[in-house]
């Protein structure tokens, strides 16, 4: 009986669990509730994904009002994939949080941490399933507000300023998105995304629509930290608690990329976004700059979390590059990279959480010789790092392979070369960490560090294993990404 209600269940399970955490208090009760809720919504997402792959787009009318009167949830292959990523990473991170230092830091308010975590999960998934433009903004703000709180829980005081900066930039971005939605509403009289898409060509692409497009792209670019609007991201991800960094780095920017895809291709339509307006050229240029400049900055950072944060900005570049090709292969590559990047960044940040748990730092010099004392942890880092570079047999290779193929298909050899070149920069910054951990003497006070506890290692290794598994057995993400790309391009 509940099967038909799955699209909404996936949202309301964490949404109901969040206030329950507050009512029950207690560290263990909150932990149990959070675990059940994240795993529950992961199970729902998996069923939804299977259903979408088998029988096509799902639609759910909230309040029983048919769209565009009421709000509609609409799930196609792309939404289903995003749901899987968000709830999957959430399911791995939720148990990890219990033993990381974070809960000791927040101590008697750990139940509130779980509450904020569930809200963030709920907001991100809410964005991923909704078919209504304004509703998308509301859930985007749920996820943003809770991530400001989560980031501010970092141990370093710089977490506070990072969170504040993110709050300012994020709110400007969100307000831009609201302006854009308002202009679209003024032009079409509706808020349902499918309905907007249908009514825009009738209305004509006038100056109002062009302004709406500009505001949307800039607003989303702020939210997803597209170079050069990325300034908030490196600090936010480096000073947030590791658990939070892992969760946000793997999911939050992905959801923003999803918003960009959805609006460019479905709402505005391929023809308007790329034929009438020359969007592809600036996107490609920014993507290439993003692939190089933050990567080079990453090579000079000493805080390994910051290295990964800058690398995240670079990886957004790959995704946007795939979008900028506006071809079937390019989009597939971009969407695949979205999935794979969640796996590798999630794994790497979880590893750093384990390192921090033992040595209280993520500085590259403090991590010297760590492979001797924490072999399993550092092996997991190597696994995630190889995937980030894009070595064959890892997930990272698959998406880069598709990306290069897409470039060659278009005859853009120079871009294919640039993709390989930027991967070489990734080799440098990952190698710096590996070199320090494997080939240097440990600092004196860190000679007797013990291996990280299993409760931290297992989640990290699950994601590392995911990187290898989806590097070999690629059918699931590739088929979903292809289906998603086809529906994005075919929507018009």
């Amino acid at each position, binding site marked *: 009986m509940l099967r038909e209600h799955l699209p909404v269940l996936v949202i309301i399970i964490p949404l109901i669990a969040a206030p329950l955490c507050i009512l029950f208090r207690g560290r263990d009760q909150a932990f149990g509730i959070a675990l059940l809720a994240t795993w529950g919504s992961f199970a729902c997402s998996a069923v939804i994904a299977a259903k979408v792959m088998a029988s096509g787009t799902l639609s759910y009318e909230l309040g029983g009002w048919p769209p565009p009167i009421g709000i509609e949830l609409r799930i196609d292959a792309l939404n289903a994939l995003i749901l899987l990523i968000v709830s999957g990473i959430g399911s791995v991170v939720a148990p990890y949080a219990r033993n990381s230092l974070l809960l000791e830091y927040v101590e008697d308010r750990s139940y509130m941490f779980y509450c904020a975590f569930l809200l963030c999960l709920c907001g991100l998934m809410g964005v991923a399933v909704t078919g209504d433009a304004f509703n998308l903004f509301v859930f985007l703000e749920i996820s943003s*507000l809770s991530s400001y709180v989560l980031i501010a829980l970092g141990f370093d005081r710089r977490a506070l300023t990072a969170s504040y900066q993110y709050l300012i930039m994020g709110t400007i971005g969100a307000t831009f998105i609201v302006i854009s939605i308002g202009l679209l509403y003024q032009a079409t009289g509706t808020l349902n995304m499918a309905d907007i898409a249908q009514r825009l060509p009738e209305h004509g692409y006038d100056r109002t629509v062009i302004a709406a497009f500009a505001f949307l792209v800039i607003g989303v670019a702020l939210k997803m930290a597209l170079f050069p609007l990325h300034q908030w991201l490196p600090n936010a991800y480096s000073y947030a608690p590791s658990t939070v960094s892992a969760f946000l780095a793997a999911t939050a920017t992905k959801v923003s990329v999803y918003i960009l895809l959805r609006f460019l291709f479905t709402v505005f339509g391929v023809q308007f976004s790329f034929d009438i307006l020359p969007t592809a050229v600036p996107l490609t240029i920014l993507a290439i700059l993003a692939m190089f400049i933050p990567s080079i900055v990453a090579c000079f950072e000493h805080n390994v979390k910051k290295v990964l944060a800058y690398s995240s900005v670079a990886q957004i570049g790959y995704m946007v590059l795939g979008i900028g090709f506006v071809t079937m292969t390019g989009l597939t590559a971009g969407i695949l990279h979205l999935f794979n990047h969640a796996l590798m960044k999630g794994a790497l940040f979880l590893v750093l959480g384990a390192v921090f748990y033992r040595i209280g730092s993520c500085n590259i010099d403090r991590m010297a010789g760590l492979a001797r004392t924490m072999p399993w942890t550092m092996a997991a880092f190597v696994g995630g790092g190889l995937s980030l570079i894009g070595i064959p047999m890892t997930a990272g290779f698959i998406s880069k392979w598709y990306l290069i193929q897409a470039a060659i298909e278009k005859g853009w050899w120079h871009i294919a070369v640039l993709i390989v070149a930027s991967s070489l920069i990734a080799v440098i910054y990952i190698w710096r960490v590996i070199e320090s951990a494997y080939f240097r003497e440990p600092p004196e006070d860190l000679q007797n560090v013990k291996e990280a506890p299993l409760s931290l290692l297992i989640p990290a290794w699950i994601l590392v294993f995911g990187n290898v598994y989806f590097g070999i057995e690629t059918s699931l993400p590739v088929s979903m990404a292809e289906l998603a790309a086809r529906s994005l391009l075919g929507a018009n």
Partner: protein
Amino acid sequence: MMLEVIDIIILTLMTVTVIGIVVMRNLLAVVMLGGIYSLLAASIFVALDAVDVAFTEAAVGAGISTVLFIGTLALTTRVEKRPKHKPLLPLCVCIITGAVLIYGSLDMARFGDPNSPANRHVAAHYLENTKKDTGVPNVVTAVLASYRGYDTLGEVTVIFTAGIGVILLLGNWRRGLKPPAPHHEDKA
């Protein structure tokens, strides 16, 4: 015509208030002007028939927000430092953004046009059917709680999140916020 006159007067007052906010460096004055700005916005909402919104903006923007701002001032400081940099880049960004918006406004339906797309389609449906569907005469309430009830659920969640966030960040907890030491040994 009456509407236009009221509109122009309030908008002029709002402009003056904003200039005050930009120029002043006494933060208490800035915060009070911010509250006045919200109050003026609320009065313009009344002129534009948005009574529910006016009510909320007056209670929240001019009320609660201002109280929270003043509370923060009491805990921090009263005077803004003199800005050091020449704000050329921000100025350019704002002028360009504003120019894009004004460019976009050129093709908008004229102010008050009953036949604009925004005022037909979905909106007309609400006005026609609310009474029949829900029996609630205040259409705003009906749309808020029923037709777009899911949005309002999200809105309550947002305010819930903010409440949790403020408690997490500022609550009086047993221990202060001391960073935990790393664990060299496993916990028993």
